[in-house]
């Protein structure tokens, strides 16, 4: 395995007598999209702020490309591009001037690189307008542009889809995936939107009360055939017939509640189920496949959302 892009080693943060982050240990690999999931107050933002040196580390360390953010700040941070919380930029300047100002802080960024990044995030037409006239989506893009200026090998995005409309979210998602797959950038994303994270990330670390309670590998492939949950909407008078058919043909037990029949099934069997049910003249008003979502896993591991 290659050298990890980022390593968290026994990372702790204490404020007063309260331990906010209680010792995080994990690695993030190049080309990986790592999701940081947790309810509000779990310590996501605190951890991210420690990763970029905005707040001091009480104990442990963060190593970026092997360089400690504590003792080798300049060398470590030059590999990182970040948006911490909202993409706040200078509203009184144009988007281009904002990028120009940030480019001067890191040696070796040419004007061509600025143009390239602007094109990458699709802001060419509005880049010379003042940022205060930008919509949230445009600010988010400009935020990503400033984070990418210096070709970082690690991109940290805190709540990147916050406040974006669905098409904006999809764009950011595709963009993040492309960066990871084509440019081998390690992307760290934090969010409390589970469905979002599931679509975007390779791995998700679940944080609760400052502790990493689980790391989930996300399978985006279909061969794995995860168990799906199917819900059929049909009148109760057909329930018995349908339940019997499902039990006999597929060996599953369907639960009835109101108008709905719910049962688990593997993905490959779905087409034949539909066919069988239709042939058996069962009046279906709806057929919905609900993946066993991360949300279920999430709620399962998190339990009640209690901020300690």
């Amino acid at each position, binding site marked *: 395995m290659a050298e990890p892009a980022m390593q968290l080693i026994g990372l702790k943060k204490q404020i007063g007598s309260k331990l906010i982050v209680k010792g995080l240990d994990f690695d993030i690999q190049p080309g990986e999209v790592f999701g940081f999931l947790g309810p509000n107050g779990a310590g996501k*933002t605190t951890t991210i*702020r420690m990763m*970029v*040196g*905005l*707040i*001091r580390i009480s104990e442990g360390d963060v190593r970026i490309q092997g360089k400690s953010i504590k003792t080798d*700040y*300049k*060398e470590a*941070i*030059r590999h*990182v591009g*970040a948006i*911490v*919380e*909202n993409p*706040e*930029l*200078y*509203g*009184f*300047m144009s988007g281009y*001037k904002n990028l*120009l*100002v*940030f480019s*001067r*802080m*890191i*040696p070796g960024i040419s004007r061509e690189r600025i143009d390239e990044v602007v094109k990458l995030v699709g802001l060419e037409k509005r880049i010379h307008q003042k940022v205060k006239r930008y919509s949230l989506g445009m600010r988010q893009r400009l935020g990503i542009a*400033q984070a990418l200026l210096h070709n970082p090998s690690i991109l940290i995005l805190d709540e990147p889809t916050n406040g974006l409309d669905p098409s904006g979210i999809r764009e950011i998602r595709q963009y993040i995936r492309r960066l990871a797959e084509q440019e081998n950038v390690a992307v760290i994303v934090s969010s409390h939107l589970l469905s979002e994270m599931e679509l975007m990330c390779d791995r998700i670390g679940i944080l609760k009360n400052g502790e990493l309670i689980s790391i989930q590998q996300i399978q985006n492939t279909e061969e794995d055939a995860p168990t799906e949950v199917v819900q059929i909407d049909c009148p109760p008078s057909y329930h018995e017939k349908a339940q019997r058919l499902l039990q006999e043909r597929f060996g599953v037990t369907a639960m009835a509640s109101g108008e709905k029949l719910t049962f688990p099934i593997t993905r490959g069997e779905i087409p034949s189920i539909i066919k069988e049910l239709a042939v058996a003249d069962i009046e279906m008003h709806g057929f919905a496949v609900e993946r066993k979502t991360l949300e279920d896993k999430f709620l399962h591991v998190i339990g009640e959302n209690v901020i300690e």
Partner: protein
Amino acid sequence: MSNFFQLVRNEQTKLYSQLSTWILLGILVVIVLGFAIIMRTAEGIMPYEDETWKQTLQEENQMYAEIDPTDPNIAINNYRIENDLKPEGMSAWGFLYESHYLTSVLSLITIIVAGGILANEFRWGTIKLLLTRPATRTKIFFAKYASVLLFALTALIVLFISAWLFGMIFFGLGGDGSVLQLKDGEIVDVSVWTRIAQDYGLQLVKLAVWSTFAFMISAAFRNSALAIGTAIFLMFAGISVVSFIADKPFAKYILFANLDLTQFTTGYKMIDDLTLTFAIVTIIVYYLIFLVVGWVLFAKRDVAGH
């Protein structure tokens, strides 16, 4: 080093991209204009006519003598009458000198800039972008401080140019602005540049100290209103504080007692046993304390959420 230069350049770009900076400089120019108009009006009351100027000076002397018979102006006026040196009246150079009274306005706008330059980054949230770059906090702190001093210098140049221009418009270019002064019982001719260097210089000491103070509060509390407010309050209220406690033994260690260096040129000291050296050392000590406290707090404190 080039890195530091780029940071200062960035600060200047940001500063002059803000409308408020231009408004502050605009206010300065308007105040110079107002001052010129007032001076022009005042001068018209007692002009020095070619035929009657000696008589005018004698009338002036009578007025001075009623208030204070040892007034140095009496000796100067007598010297003029004896040597047939007609007073020049106000000129562009003279007005440029008189405008040193406006350096308090200069201090005010510099304090506003100094109080905002760090605190605003926190208010805007852009501090997070600034501090996640390969530039240390120390460098950013001093780049911002250098930027404040550069702004003060720019504003001083604006003050100079506008004062000279309005002076030329309202008073003309006549004369070189030199004046007669009584020094050790002798009348000497002092050029306008000597006077400008001295009186502006003494005022700029105050400007530097108070804007550094505002900068420190801005770095420590990350709140521009607090920084600007306390700096302006202390700048104006500090002197009166000293007059209350002037008889206490610790009074001479207070910054306000030392800050007004004109007390050593006029001789009206706030506390009798003050010396120029002592005052300068005290000012430097306070100045360094402000700078170091601001720097340490800025470099060490966490940048947490809102």
